[in-house]
């Protein structure tokens, strides 16, 4: 659990860095993924403040983690689209430095989220965690041989 919390903390810090930077062009894409990052931030704060000894802790944990992953799943394509839009609208685009900074933040968030997977799978069994962790985060490294 401690390891999981450490990764969640790291994600919280990364998101904070993006949010502190604020909007750059405030187009519809940036508005949408910022709303998701803000929600992620709230969820992370609740996760980190959770009383893990409470009776319904596991149930709450499941809901909050599910929302966290889904926030990321929705934010990631919006962010990629925003990157493209930034290059295409020179007049209202963020600077290369701003773009690269965000890119690296999102990459790190993805990396950290991936790191959480085994811990979540430990807390919940494989079957339950399928409904918590999105497929691509869970299965990218799962090889099948027929």
């Amino acid at each position, binding site marked *: 659990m401690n390891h999981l919390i450490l990764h969640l903390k790291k994600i919280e810090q990364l998101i904070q860095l993006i949010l502190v930077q604020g909007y750059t062009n405030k187009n519809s894409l940036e508005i949408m993924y910022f709303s998701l990052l803000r929600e992620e931030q709230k969820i992370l704060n609740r996760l980190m403040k959770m009383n893990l000894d409470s009776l319904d802790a596991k149930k709450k944990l499941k809901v909050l983690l599910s929302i966290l992953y889904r926030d990321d799943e929705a934010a990631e394509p919006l962010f990629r689209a925003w990157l493209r839009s930034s290059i295409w609208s020179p007049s*209202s685009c963020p600077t290369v430095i701003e773009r690269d900074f965000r890119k690296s933040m999102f990459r790190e968030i993805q990396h950290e989220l991936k790191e959480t997977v085994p811990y979540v799978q430990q807390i919940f069994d494989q*079957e339950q965690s399928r*409904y918590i962790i999105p497929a691509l985060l869970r299965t*990218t490294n799962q*090889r*099948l041989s027929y």
Partner: protein
Amino acid sequence: MSWIDSRIDLNIYSQGEINQWIYSTCNICSIGCGCYIAVKDNKIVGIKGNSEHPINRGRLDPKGENQWYANNSPDRLLLPLKRDTNGELVETTWDDAFTILVNQAKRALKNYGPNGVAIYSTGQATLETYYTIAKIGRAGLRSHLLDANTRLCTATTEWGLLESFGSDGVPACYQDIDVTETLFLIGHNPAETGTVLFERIMERKKRTGKPFMIVVDPRKTLTAKEANCHLQLLPGTNVALLNGLIHLIIKNNDINKSFIKQHTIHFNQLVEAVQEWTPEKTAKETGIPVKQLELAAEQLGKTPSLVTTTLQGTYQSADATTTTVDVNNLHLIRGLIGRPGCGPLHMAGQPSSSANRTVGGVGSYPGNRNPNNPQHVKEIAQLWNVPISHLEVGPEKGIEEILHLMEEENIGLFWNIQTNPMVSLPNRKRAKKAFEKTFVVVQDPFLTETTEVADLVLPPAMWGEKDGTMENADRTINLLKKAIDPPANVLPDFDILLEFARRMDFRDRDNNPLISYTTPKECFEEWKRVSKGRPSDMSGITYEKLEKYNGLQWPVNEEHPLGTPRLYTDLNFHTTVDAAQSYGKDLFNGRERVKEEYEALNANGKAILYPTIYLPPIERPSEEYPLWLTTGRLVWHWHTRTKTGRSPALQMVAPEGYVEINPIDADRLDLLPGEVVRLISARGWIEVPTRIVDTVQPGLVFVPFHYGSWEAHQAANEITVDFTDPLSKQPTFKQSACRIEKRRKKIKITSEENLISVAKNYNLTVNEIARANKMTPPFRSDIGQEIEIPLSKVNVTIPPYMPYRKVERYPHFKQAKFPVTKIDLQD
């Protein structure tokens, strides 16, 4: 009542008597017209409308009448092709092709895992093919990367319905259009895209004056021209408009309070959201005058019955799903749903795209099941007799997300079935680069722009060469019977999939083959068991019944043996936690809801109203790209012209791309009609002749997307943006920004020349040279004066097609009478 009488449209080209007529359904658009295929000596030689079929009563439109030519096209692929070491596509045997396919699938699964294989199919195949894709994809390959070009076509229909009503399935039907007082068409141009349905609407309108038609479209389309009220809004402002109209309807107290109380939730949130959308604010954002807004709101607020249709102007625009939900909101606050003449009728584009959604070939779960509901997943596992852990959970991934995985080199096999994404995907250069990073299998009867990036090409059978069913836009399941054998060495998609499953040795829990059926009919019997008890229950259908009754609308079961034209007549919606097909997504940003959040909504069978937030289009005209670019279809062609381009008649009437530009913009840029110009966006450029017409508003240009050859530089999707709706993941083709550059050369007038001789040299008139150079009379040509000459000019004449104008006096379109021109059809 649909149609007063029948009229059998016919297009045969045959020497001598034909042998037989085979029962079928048109395979072009989602209207679902019944037809018969003419066969002579195991060859398709024509088509005629089915006069008994309630959808069309014998009518067919030009695309429908000419679809069969492609079957006989001399350039059909008759053997599989593989790319050799020199990079050339060379013929090979089916055995070799299957070996390559199976080896590649195994390699991809080994190297990348179950989501290393993606299947991207179509909206033009049969229900049985899609169901087989779903089963092989989910239970065999264990992938959830199943998508189709329906993502470009009807994905938003699905998500709009899931959000408001808990399940897919359009509430209203064509019969409702026949009796409604008001028809509200939003981004839907049936005069060109669903022509027979439009003829049906106009036949009644000419006769009775009804329905009152309100058309929302930034272009003056042929549909808009017939409207009582055309709301010609600025591009990308659908939600602003609907919020403004709902604001007025609530303000005028034209709402059905008891309906809202009994059958919906979240009305107060909706009221709050539309509060700011005063007529003045709406007018400013949409460009529609307040008076017109008030007129529309009055009609929509007072009408006793209303059908609203939506299509690509909604689905391929900014705020696509939000607009669709806004339409549902409108019907719900007025209580206009679940009774004759009432309800949202969110359309589909292709002839069976809806079937792909229904049976799960497009990544949805079969039979409107919820991929996040363990009970629903368990049901499928039991029905298919596979371990539950083999079935991936979670919502489908759209093609844009799959492309991204390809860019990241996470896909080992991309299997493309009967679609041409190198023409139809937005920002196609990006798509091409992604395709080049993986092993691509293309299943197509012809060489296309997409086979250019294929490693393996499999030639499938076409319409008329296989059995099966299709689902149209109003839940009608129609039958298509095999009329002729496919050419030797050409296999139906269905057979290709079955052979693939056999060679992959996919098995169920009891070690029996995963796919045990061998014919489409047997497959349909299995699907019936899977659908039983679900919203799209088809347990009461047989192929024989489909032929006897000319299509049946789902659900068809013991309770409704002859189908269900209209959904939600009991006003019970699929919004209980156990029944819902999805727990929904956040309408603002697309974040998937979790079960507990859905439970907390407490909808429990009531429809869900949503606050709808307007977000302007992402790319808008700027200094560098000052024009809006929108794309769309012509009445004469379908999609990427793989079939319609092979019909001599259709190809002759609309052989190449063009750009429509308003006379004001053309004047400002000194453009000549037909002058070839370069359209440039941040993604690339195309070169097309101009059509200077006021169908587009100033500041907007329109390019048909049908023309995609790599050499001709006319592909609209070379310059479109590839942003997608956050819920449905449907691309927003309708709003990009571009600029126009003239392609001209400069010449100096010599002492031997004058304007008349220069004009003659370049095949222009003096007036054209004067216009191109902003000269004012009297036109002088001084020696040494520099003038501009357009490099190229093409006469673009695209005749409109409006049979309803003179249905009685003029014969319908006939290939023999070709070309049909304006003169043929106008007064």
